[in-house]
């Protein structure tokens, strides 16, 4: 930090102009003609703005590079996701789930909770239990025919798993089901955008 001159504002008129630092000022006048406060902030404005512009552009280019790297990360993740096809799994027997009831199971892995519901129409549907907003577990509201995410008051239609209200915009993950010999089998996982 620079000390203030003994005399403030300085008396430029009594100083040798050649000894003063060469700084360009916005108004184009020489340093001795500048107001006294500029001595306390001796910034070369024109040069400072050019440097800031270059640095700002470099920051933007580096940010874009981070976006590109993330984009390739998504590409690699899509390759992995494309290869992983879950194995079919028997979930429950038809008679174990009465009409209007929902049971919590896991598919495809032991850490992937799903909700299997027997609708009043007689059909079975299953959805991933994690809300598509911020991954809170949704809970069934059979009396309303909906699934509720209590974290942020999100609501999903139980028949289709589509968002009805609240922050979620994407439908719940749908579990593909098959009924063979009275047994409900999960055969795949369907992520959906709309």
């Amino acid at each position, binding site marked *: 930090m620079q000390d203030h001159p003994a005399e403030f504002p300085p008396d430029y008129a009594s100083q040798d102009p050649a000894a003063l630092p060469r700084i360009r000022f916005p108004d184009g006048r020489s340093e001795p003609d500048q107001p006294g406060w500029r001595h306390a902030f001796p910034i070369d404005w024109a040069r400072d703005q050019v440097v800031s*512009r270059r640095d700002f552009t470099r920051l933007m280019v580096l940010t*874009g590079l981070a*976006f*590109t790297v993330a984009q390739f990360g998504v590409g690699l993740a899509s390759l992995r996701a494309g290869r992983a096809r879950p194995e079919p799994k028997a979930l429950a027997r038809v008679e174990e789930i009465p009409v209007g009831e929902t049971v919590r199971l896991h598919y495809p892995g032991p850490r992937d909770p799903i909700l299997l519901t027997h609708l009043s129409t007689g059909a079975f549907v299953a959805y991933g239990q994690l809300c598509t907003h911020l991954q809170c577990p949704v809970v069934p509201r059979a009396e309303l025919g909906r699934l509720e995410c209590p974290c942020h008051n999100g609501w999903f239609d139980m028949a289709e798993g589509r968002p009805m209200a609240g922050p979620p915009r994407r439908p719940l993950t749908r579990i593909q089901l098959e009924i063979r010999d009275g047994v409900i089998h999960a055969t795949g996982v369907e992520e959906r955008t709309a």
Partner: protein
Amino acid sequence: MSPADDGHTPDQRGILLDGILFLVGLILMLQLWLLTATMEAFLGGDLEIAWPAALASLACQALNLGLWRILGALDPR
């Protein structure tokens, strides 16, 4: 190319630099949009869009690098 011999007045150079800055910002926003749209599609199970989007982002990045180099040539320290 130095500022003295590129044939531009300081005002012209300023306009060029502002234009480059604007383009770089525009491309950066495009990259951000591309990333969010790709993430949205990926989370929704659409896996086919990820690699074309990554290549598009790479092309944008190459364009930005080129603009940055032009800016460096117009405005050396």
